[in-house]
């Protein structure tokens, strides 16, 4: 059993979706993207990971992971990033993830994240759109 299986389940769900691949052709990356990656792309980051202890065994009762998952697009308009974010929501919110070594409990968006990044020098803009997702799993 490895908590990495939870991350892998998220990546699998996102990368296996043909619609998201069309909306975010750059791909799905953890934390950072390769230099010059095609845009929009999707970023997945672990915000926090909590193990709920239980008395009888060292195995946690459940694991709760908060991810920030967002689409990033270098554009003046939020439309493309927003469409990709909507697709991420459709894939993950309420999904029953297939996590090796765990039973899935919950996968929901807890809050929305959307902002525009402006480079003051060049006036170039990047649109960030997605959300904070809570994933809870029960170790088998």
């Amino acid at each position, binding site marked *: 059993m490895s908590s990495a299986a939870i991350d892998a389940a998220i990546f699998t769900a996102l990368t296996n979706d043909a619609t998201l691949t069309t909306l975010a052709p750059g791909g799905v990356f953890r934390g*950072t993207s390769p230099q010059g990656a095609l845009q929009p792309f999707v970023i997945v980051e672990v*915000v*926090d990971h909590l193990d709920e202890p239980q008395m009888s065994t060292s195995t946690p009762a459940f694991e709760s992971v908060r991810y920030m998952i967002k689409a990033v697009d270098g554009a003046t308009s939020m439309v493309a990033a927003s469409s990709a974010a909507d697709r991420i929501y459709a894939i993950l919110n309420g999904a029953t993830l297939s996590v090796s070594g765990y039973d899935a409990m919950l996968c929901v968006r807890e809050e929305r994240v959307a902002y525009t990044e402006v480079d003051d020098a060049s006036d170039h803009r990047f649109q960030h759109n997605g959300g904070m997702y809570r994933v809870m799993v029960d170790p088998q």
Partner: protein
Amino acid sequence: MSASLKFDGLKELMATLKVSGKIAADGVRSTVRQSAYAFAEQAKSDTKIGKTGNLRRGIKVREDVGASNVVSFDVRNTAPHAHLYEYGFMHKNGNRHIPGNFVFSKAGGARQRMNDRIEQILPEILQAAVDKS
């Protein structure tokens, strides 16, 4: 000739219960304030000092004095680029994504510790008020 039967024991207790919201709010104010300042200090130490130091200096605590019987303290970063540090941004030269630091998104632990502490002290605060009535 008359006989009067009267039970007045609940009067003062009812008066205490009427203001129990204020008693609870006053009683937990210092816990909430301490939690807010402790979280702000943690957020400051988790925030790197850049060229100007504005990002760390921008972390401030403010009491939100809105509704009655509500104790609320806001911890916020007033620096204009705080959200980029929190959620990540695109590196200008490399054109690649720099990960977020999630300083404020990790407030859940501090909130939980505060709630645990309040759960512990609130019954004592209310009991003391009832005993006094």
